[in-house]
């Protein structure tokens, strides 16, 4: 990188080693935090890093500096905050990596019912209809469906954890495709949970 202020050429992150001026920040979150791209992140360590970087980059520290540095500080802190928000949450983090690797959610989002859920969805809709028709016993059915969904979410957490470890060690497209499928499934299930909750309340 070439320093915008003193034209020094350097490799450091954020600051020119010669004149100390704040530099345009990297946009990639992993690069920004100075960590390799992986999914099994140590969040406590990332938080320490977040606080340290906040102290160095926050606009409050640049109020007496040049216009250029002030705007760079706002830009850098925005990326820092967005990055921290994204990387600290395993689901957001996975979405971020998937997006970078070309596994976007795309247009279809969660409309397609994952095949293994077809039966569950059918039963849930039946129960909801029954409840609306005044069949109070359907309430029980909804509650037990809710519990099953919660169980599915919990087990998908474990699936994700294993897939994270796999991608971190071997890389490649396969684990990512599997993660994509789990995330879609989760999205679908959480919609079902919400539907059931709405009917019960």
């Amino acid at each position, binding site marked *: 990188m070439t320093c915008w202020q003193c034209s020094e050429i350097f490799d450091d992150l954020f600051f020119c080693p010669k004149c100390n001026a704040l530099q345009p920040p990297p946009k990639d979150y992993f690069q920004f935090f100075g960590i390799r791209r992986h999914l099994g992140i140590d969040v406590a360590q990332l938080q320490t890093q977040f606080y340290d970087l906040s102290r160095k980059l926050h606009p*409050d520290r640049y109020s*007496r500096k040049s216009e250029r540095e002030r705007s760079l500080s706002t830009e850098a*802190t925005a990326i820092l*905050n967005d990055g921290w*928000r994204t990387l600290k949450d395993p689901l957001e983090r996975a979405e971020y990596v998937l997006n970078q690797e070309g596994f976007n959610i795309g247009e279809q989002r969660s409309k397609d019912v994952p095949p293994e859920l077809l039966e569950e969805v059918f039963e849930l809709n039946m129960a909801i209809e029954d409840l609306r028709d005044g069949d109070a016993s359907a309430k029980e059915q909804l509650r037990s469906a809710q519990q099953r969904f919660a169980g599915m979410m919990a087990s998908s957490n474990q699936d994700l954890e294993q897939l994270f470890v796999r991608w971190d060690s071997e890389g490649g497209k396969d684990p990512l495709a599997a993660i994509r499928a789990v995330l879609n499934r989760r999205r679908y299930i959480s919609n079902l949970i919400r539907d059931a909750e709405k009917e019960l309340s």
Partner: protein
Amino acid sequence: MSSFQIDFGDAAKQRIIGIDLGTTNSLGAFMDLTGPQVIPGENGALLVPSVVAVSEDGQPIVGAQALKMLTTSPDRVVYSVKRLMGRGLGDITEELKLFPFHIAEGSDSVIQLEVGGRVYTAPEVSALILRQIRKNAEAFFGEAVDQAVITVPAYFNDAQRQATKDAGRIAGLEVLRLVNEPTAAALAYGLDKRKQGIIAVYDLGGGTFDISILKLHNGIFEVLATNGDTHLGGDDIDNLMIAVALEDIETEWGINIRGNQEAVQTLRKAVIEAKEQLSFAPAVQLSLAWEGKTYQRELTRAIFDHLITPIVDRTLGPCRACIADAKVAIDQIDEVVMVGGSTRIPLVRSAVEALFKAKPHTELNPDEVVALGAAVQAGILSGDVEDTLLLDVTPLSLGIETMGGVVSKLIQRNSTIPASATESYTTGVEGQRNVLIHVVQGERELAKDCRSLARFDLKDIDPMPAGLPRIEVKFLIDANGILNVTAREQRTGKEQTVEVKPSYGLSDEQVEAMVLESIEKAEEDFNERQVREARVEGERVLAAVQKGKQSDAWDELSDEERATIDLAMNELIMVSYHSDHLLIHDKMEQLDQVTRGLAEKMMNTAVGVALKGTKIE
């Protein structure tokens, strides 16, 4: 002869003051070596009532003087203008029922208020209040003050923040930062002394309510979540009590005095006094004397509590939502800080204590704590306060209107700011030159239920087949909680022109015009400061000469010399009443000239005494 080179060093640094621009009262504070201090105003009063009046000859009057006029000529006075900041005519129907705002013609995009024959926007009224605080600060420091940190309710939206920033600019202040009031209060409490922990700040002011939950971490104040209601406060309690009393009066006297502003304002004053006393006394007399009639009622705390319970309850919903958003359990909250005049009310305190299961902090004056915190933030910006850093959040989600009026959220509420999001846009028709983006703020699914912030017009797109342009739009919420939008065409890398049409508030041109107008006022202010400084200097010189007249040297002067000095003194006293600082300096100089002989003789006498002193030894 050698001369000194004085190195001013840090002293040359510009001073930044902190200002709490409140619904009921405003005040300024600054940072000294011992910590944040309040800046005293005229007559030593600390609080400046946020009230503006217009005198018979069209001059604005600010503060205590204006407040007094409220009961004598209410149509010349405006108060609680903070409730109108950044709002459109459509959202103030409730306010108009309860406050005597006179809306002028042409209030489509910005509300125009008529006050005593003059027309002001809400930011202009706020600017008059800010100008008063700035004047107080300049008189106190004896130097120009141009930079400030101003506080806003945490739950203020973009338009309300922008309006506050505009007010600062109109008052001739460079607003270096808008700080959220509850966060400022946390800074003032110096809770960073406790290295770790979670604290809640409950801020019930004159017109706004905020709740914020913060995590402390070695000097970093990280806001986890914030919630509130920008139209809930002590004002609402007053209005409720007034409504009850008016009804009572109507039953007793058989007449309706609602239409008489003088009577209503006199009653309002009595109600506020009663409310304040009830924080200490178990019962008070509420009385109104009007046109020979007297109304009197005993008001016990039990009745008062019963009356205001619905209002206090309205604060608890946002508290619970905030705790949920912060993802903390109630028993994890270590401390609760109380801010705002309305937290003096015992019922408010007990409700907060019951909800948070913790004894609330009330050590600092709830009217001053926000301004003190603003001063701490000013210290952080100037570099004087080094280890403390505030990480605040945006209170409301930011989204864009998509097909069918549905909101697509870009930045979630309670995101740490600065925060950003990018979206890609393209054209739908061949040769399309513009793309319009409607940005809203709020939590609802449909754009019509959210708060419209602005329409951004991406202009002058190079004519291309439909779908080919790739315009990346960056939405950035800065450290003040204010939205900035930039756009770039990805293929060409060309910066795209973005025209902003704010839904509510002043355009840049309007603010600029008001700033220009206020520069003239600033010159008046500057002159006034110079006059004040000259007067102080003159008084010092007069006191010195007066002291000289007591000395033996005075008697050694000829009658003529003594008469010349007396004349020069009188002249200086006379011109001190004028507002021409040059004239005051002239007369000071003249007095200095004619007292040289006296000064010399005094010196000799002093030396003589000193010499005699040595001899005796």
